[in-house]
């Protein structure tokens, strides 16, 4: 059995618009912040896993080394859709579990402020002047908008509507209420891109993107970075009491893709792989959903948050609407969900998200979350999912030291 891995230091930058900082600046701020939080330096690191999605061929890991410390360690540049940050972390965790090193650094960074609609490719070619079949479907013209939609807002809207069709109880208003919760939570998070409370009327009356998701019900494209230093259990034992007290145990680290299901190549199935990841994570950690003091889940759209209550087994199968209506996912509820404000208000700089979610959980487990502290938090779960698909679930536990 490979030894446990701990988070020794972790940080995130403010999410939002950073016109004065490039991708490397943001990554460096997060990486140096995490090293400083951990009380170690680049010289201690045995691996660097660096995530960036929109500029995946740029070699962000090596670019980062050139600014903060070239020590010759292996760099893994990773890109795995919206699970990129979680994948970077897991890469560092695996290196330690494999016994290759004692310390690893994982970084996720994205410059996305001002980016528009994501996922609007879809066509094999732009509307041409000569109809010639191309691509795997032999399309003679752009298919997005002609054969349904593959845009992110449209895809996740359908995922929420499908849940409603299967189990009932959903409505435009219900989805908007989920967004109302996350925007209310964001007012306590100074690092969130948007920290304004929004009324249900404001949310429902805002610009419609893809029914039933209006603009504030969609994740916010923004800039940001997050980074974590991980350490082996045996090395942690040699560190100071202060370091051991603030260390957070990675009780489970799971990455899944979607197993084949009827329809999964028609409408992405974000449910099965999330449920599979959650099941594996609970088993690894030896905890159940009822043990979770807080959950940061991937609310890339309000419609997505609903289905993940169910996928992460925070409620009975088919019971997500009742779970929400009971008040459970509010910060004073039974299972607080997205007390950071979630992707809808904190923002979603893609590759940073999978580490920032873990930072949020760690912040509470360390008792350092200030005004938004979930009192006495001992166990938390962080979930991300990227279409394609990839799902990362991490369960974190407070140190007993």
């Amino acid at each position, binding site marked *: 059995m490979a030894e446990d891995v701990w988070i020794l230091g972790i940080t995130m930058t403010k999410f939002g618009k950073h016109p004065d900082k490039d991708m490397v600046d943001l990554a460096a701020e997060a990486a140096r912040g995490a090293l400083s939080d951990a009380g170690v330096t680049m010289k201690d690191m045995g691996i660097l896993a660096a995530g960036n999605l929109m500029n995946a061929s740029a070699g962000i890991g090596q670019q980062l080394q050139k600014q903060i410390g070239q020590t010759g360690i292996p760099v893994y540049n990773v890109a795995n859709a919206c699970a990129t940050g979680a994948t970077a972390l897991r890469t560092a965790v695996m290196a330690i579990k494999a016994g290759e090193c004692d310390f690893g650094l994982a970084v996720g960074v994205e410059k996305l402020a001002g980016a528009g609609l994501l996922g609007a490719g879809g066509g094999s070619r732009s509307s041409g002047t000569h109809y010639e079949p191309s691509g795997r479907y032999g399309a003679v*013209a752009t298919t997005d*908008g002609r054969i349904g939609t593959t845009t992110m807002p449209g895809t996740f809207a359908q995922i929420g509507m499908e849940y409603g069709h299967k189990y009932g109880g959903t409505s435009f208003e219900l989805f908007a209420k989920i967004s109302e919760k996350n925007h209310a939570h964001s007012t306590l998070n100074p690092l969130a891109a948007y920290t304004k409370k929004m009324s249900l009327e404001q949310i429902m009356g805002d610009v419609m993107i893809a029914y039933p998701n209006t603009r504030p019900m969609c994740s916010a494209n923004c800039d940001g970075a997050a980074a974590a230093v991980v350490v082996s259990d045996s090395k942690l034992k040699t560190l100071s009491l202060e370091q051991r007290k603030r260390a957070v145990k990675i009780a489970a680290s799971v990455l899944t893709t979607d197993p084949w299901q009827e329809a999964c190549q028609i409408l992405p199935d974000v449910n099965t792989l999330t449920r599979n990841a959650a099941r594996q994570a609970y088993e690894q950690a030896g905890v159940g959903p009822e043990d979770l003091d807080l959950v940061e889940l991937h609310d890339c759209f309000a419609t997505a948050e609903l289905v993940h209550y169910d996928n992460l087994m925070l409620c009975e199968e088919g019971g997500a609407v009742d779970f929400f209506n009971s008040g459970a996912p509010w910060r004073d509820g039974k299972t607080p969900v997205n007390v950071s404000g979630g992707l809808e208000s904190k923002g979603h700089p893609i590759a940073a998200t999978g580490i920032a979610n873990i930072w949020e959980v760690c912040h509470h487990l360390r008792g350092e979350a200030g005004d938004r502290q979930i009192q006495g938090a001992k166990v938390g779960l962080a979930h991300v999912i990227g279409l394609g698909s990839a799902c990362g679930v991490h369960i974190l536990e407070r140190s007993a030291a």
Partner: protein
Amino acid sequence: MAKQVPLVEYLVLGDDPHLMAQECTGCGARYFDRRNACASCEGDQFTKVRIANEGILRAFTIVSMAAPGVPVPFVAGIIDCDGTSVRGNVVNVEPNPDNVSTGMKVRLTTFPIGTDDDGVEGIGFGFEPVG
């Protein structure tokens, strides 16, 4: 009549327009694209099967923001055609939530999407409410 081509190869034109899928002979999984092997069972033998023209709308969205050049709003949906899921627009209906609901019966319909420089007409498909 002008020469016609389907928007995608899995749309079959003629007197009785319909969709065709590739069905894995090993496990029955169905696909609309060119295949290397079956994602479900790894088999590499496929047979062409006709997809039912009628189905039930299982999920939809009304897209109000799309890539430049895509007319909005439009209704995008997932249709359960007798056990095979199909992606398509819901057409011949006002694109607002009062007129579209999951569970509604729809059927395949085809229509021109434009004509290219050689005078070839492109034909697309969508699903319209039944009755």
